């Protein structure tokens, strides 16, 4: 496996690669992050601490990381796929054994300088390994049962580990990203039909397990689902988040209450206002115009990624870019659905906007890979 597999007639070298980056995507990322700083500044009551300033530093580091990763040829990264996956898997096991319990779940490993959330990293390495797998696998074998089983195992093992933490949101995202990549790689329709059918069966099983000794998910997760289905049933308890979040969104109206004027978030009616529910603050303060603009920015990022993937004649690169774009899409789609009351409250942050180091760095790493694939595409 080397660059020779890539039908590269001409590749930019050295610092000239900078000019060949996918700048629209880079600028869009910076714009979205900028909106994030603004909102973090606002929810802190007009202060750069405690959220906006560290977030800006992290974005700067993340942006540098992205450029660095983009400079390294994509075939080097491809060769690391298997190793990266295994290391992440080991980290997930390590979390299980030594992880820090936060918010009722084991998610982090404290590395001293930062707290690493391996499940975030897994979203990328899983996509990398699957892309590499389908790049290696001859196209005609794609839908043979044995060759389908291997990626399924690759997906299921980390999903189970994340589910044990327990982190339902991330495990669903992993499952969806992995499945999406298999779909893109051209696995036969019938498999997906089967999985969806068994998925429905699984959901039924989960609900059947409620209250029994073999209960599959935690009580709080059940309650979240209950309140998602009927938020008004418990307006001051578990349904509080959804109700208050909808009030915040709704009270924004067309143009919002104005920067730093959002009463819902400023007065702490919103939970997790700087992380998972930050979108509600934006929607309250900037209204429908602000919210739809952010959605537009996200959509543009997706479109530029898909365009870049379609331009790319290399199978690994295409799959990787599409996988990253899919991950990104799932991120904001699930978060927005959640705060708008379309999905149960699962802890998924709004990409680049929510406060959080792990997620930001992992996302920028992913976009670094996307840029690398874009720069080093066959021409």
């Amino acid at each position, binding site marked *: 496996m080397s660059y020779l597999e890539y039908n590269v007639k001409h590749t930019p070298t050295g610092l000239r690669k900078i000019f060949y980056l996918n700048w629209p995507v880079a600028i869009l990322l910076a714009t979205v992050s900028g909106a994030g700083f603004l909102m973090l500044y606002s929810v802190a009551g007009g202060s750069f601490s405690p959220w906006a300033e560290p977030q800006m530093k992290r974005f700067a580091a993340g942006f540098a990381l992205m450029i660095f990763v983009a400079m390294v040829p994509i075939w080097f990264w491809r060769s690391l796929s298997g190793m990266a996956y295994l290391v992440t898997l080991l980290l997930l096991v390590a979390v299980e054994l030594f992880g820090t319990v936060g918010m009722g779940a084991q998610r982090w490993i404290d590395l001293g300088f930062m707290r690493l959330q391996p499940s975030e990293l897994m979203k990328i390495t899983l996509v990398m390994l699957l892309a590499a797998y389908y790049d290696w696998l001859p196209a005609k074998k794609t839908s043979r049962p044995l060759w389908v089983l291997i990626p399924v195992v690759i997906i299921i093992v980390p999903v189970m580990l994340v589910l044990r933490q327990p982190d339902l949101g991330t495990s669903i995202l992993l499952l969806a990203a992995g499945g999406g990549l298999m779909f893109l790689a051209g696995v036969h329709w019938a498999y997906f039909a089967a999985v969806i059918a068994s998925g429905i069966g699984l959901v039924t099983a989960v609900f059947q397990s409620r209250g029994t000794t073999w209960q599959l998910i935690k009580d709080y997760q059940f309650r979240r689902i209950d309140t998602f289905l009927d938020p008004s049933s418990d307006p001051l308890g578990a349904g509080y988040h959804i109700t208050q979040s909808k009030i915040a969104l709704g009270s924004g109206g067309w143009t919002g209450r104005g920067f730093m004027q959002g009463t819902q978030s400023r007065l702490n009616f919103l939970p997790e206002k700087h992380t998972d529910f930050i979108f509600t603050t934006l929607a309250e303060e900037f209204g429908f115009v602000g919210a739809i603009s952010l959605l537009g920015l996200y959509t543009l990022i997706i479109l530029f990624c898909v365009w870049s*993937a379609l331009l790319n004649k290399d199978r690994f690169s295409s799959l990787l870019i599409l996988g990253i774009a899919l991950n990104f899409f799932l991120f904001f*789609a699930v978060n927005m659905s959640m705060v708008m009351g379309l999905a149960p409250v699962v802890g998924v942050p709004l990409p680049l906007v929510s406060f959080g180091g792990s997620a930001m760095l992992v996302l920028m790493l992913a976009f670094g890979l996307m840029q690398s694939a874009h720069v080093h595409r066959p021409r």
Partner: protein
Amino acid sequence: MKKTRAETDFSHRHISRRAALLGGAQLLFIGGLAARMRYLQVEEADQFRLLAEENRINVRLIPPSRGEVFDRNGARLAQNAPSYRIVIVREDAGDVDETLGKLAKIIRLEEGTVERVKEEMRRSAPFLPVTVISDASWDEISRVSVNAPALPGITPEVGLSRVYPQGSDFAHVLGYVGPVSDYDLSKIEDPEPVLMIPRFQIGKVGVETKLEPLLRGKAGAKRVEVNAAGRVMRELDRQEGKPGSDIQLTIDSALQGYVQARISKESASAVIIDCDTGDLLACASAPSFDPNLFVRGISQADYGALTGNKYRPLASKTVQGLYPPGSTFKMITAMAALEAGLIGPDETAYCPGHLTVSGRRFHCWKRAGHGWVDLQDSLKKSCDVYYYDLAIKVGIEKISAMARRFGLGIKHDVPMSAVAEGLAPTMQWKETFHGQPWRVGDTVNSSIGQGFLLASPLQLAVMSARIATGREVSPRLIKSVDGVEQPLRGGESLGVNENNLRKMRRAMHAVVNDRRGTAYRSRIIAEDMRMAGKTGTSQVRNITAAERRAGVIRNEDLPWERRDHALFVNFAPFDRPKIAVSVIVEHGGGGSKAAAPIARDITLQALYGGQPPLEAYPAKDRDRIATQQEELRAIQPLVSINGRDQA
């Protein structure tokens, strides 16, 4: 393994197709999100905005400051003084145990305080203050303030609390305030929200409760923005309330202080009323209590001492206490007879010491009898038989009607607690309440103020004032509200013959100033201050025939509870009456001995507007009076006489 161009092209086409599909699905989902956004933010915006307002706006009441009470000369009787509390806020306190430990080193904390504070903290929100000491002294406050940097989360707080600077002098007139109880709320039909404020004080007794609506004022309100935990973030706007009205009483606090001190050793009460206006100048009931104790929350021991006292300090005897008026009622019997034309100009009656009415023998207080007496003699010597005779001729209906005309047996409109109506019985009344017909004997008993008759000191003072003026003097306690003079009531003529009244007054003058009058020893010798009055001694027990034969036991030899009540009513100066007075000493023995001297002292005090000169007293009393004045000054040294020149 190098891929052929055909292979890459194939896979690329394949990916493109699926990518387009997946991308399309994504766009569709994004469209769904946008639609949802539009629904929430545009279509339902108004409803959600309303919900957001409800979330954040909270209306808080601003308690009004309670009106103050002054005496007729502007001396403060009830005021709002700052009261200090020491509170702790958990979220600012850091280590609560450590902070409380430090506090305990600086000021003395009562046992169990720390436990109570921690328990309260556990139950309330972290930003809410919890009271550590509710009634801190200035010394404690300054110590806490000085050490503030070492005591995070501990702050002194200032509130307003009711204080009665005159202490026990006005306990029965003013009453006192206290925190709103569930019982208070249950009595109020539509309680104002302000009553729900913790520690809000309302009147419990006396003027404080009777004039509660005036004194309380109207609560203001402020709209505040609160966060999810209920903490106030900022004030949006406020609507000022209306402070309570200031009340001025007709009572003269210096005089009240004197009267209260003068009777303090007895279970007694005294009322001084202005004959012209009906203003109550003094309204004293002894023994009294310190109303400030009730405001702060009285201790079990103190309360037990008050309720256990046989002199009943808590009873407001001037308006609430009902006593048989005894001989002080004789003026009414006489007036009824005079008005009925039953007493001729020089008519006399013979008193053999008793009168037999339908087989029952009614005795005069003087066993030997008074011999031949006319109207003036009968009152002067307080002959009973004369009045038995009159009453039988006049009949109870006319006597009772006359009693009501002079203010007995009717409820006077005075804003004090438990104002009693008293009783001027009629035949109908006895039929209704006792189911028995009225008997002549009842009339005989009533003629000398015994039997069913009941009157309060206030009523007797009113009676005295009406005799003195011939006008319908009505008691007034509230002089002005917020500086607005309150109307005088009932200055009309009583409609009785002035000549008859003059006869009564002359007879009362004789009671005090005639050598053989029952109150001669309590006369005033200052020429322009002379008083006219009437003694009364009302029995609280029946004297049996056996006892009478053996000789009536002297009051001094009876247990206190069975002794007679001593009464005295008077007005002064005789020629142009300014004040009318009534004094009742419970179980004090004879009216001439126990009540009349008190009446004289307080009458002089009122007329002179301060301590009277000894020359007003008969020469042989002066030494005794001088000593007494000395003693009384020691009891009530601190009565402030604001805005009053001491002539």
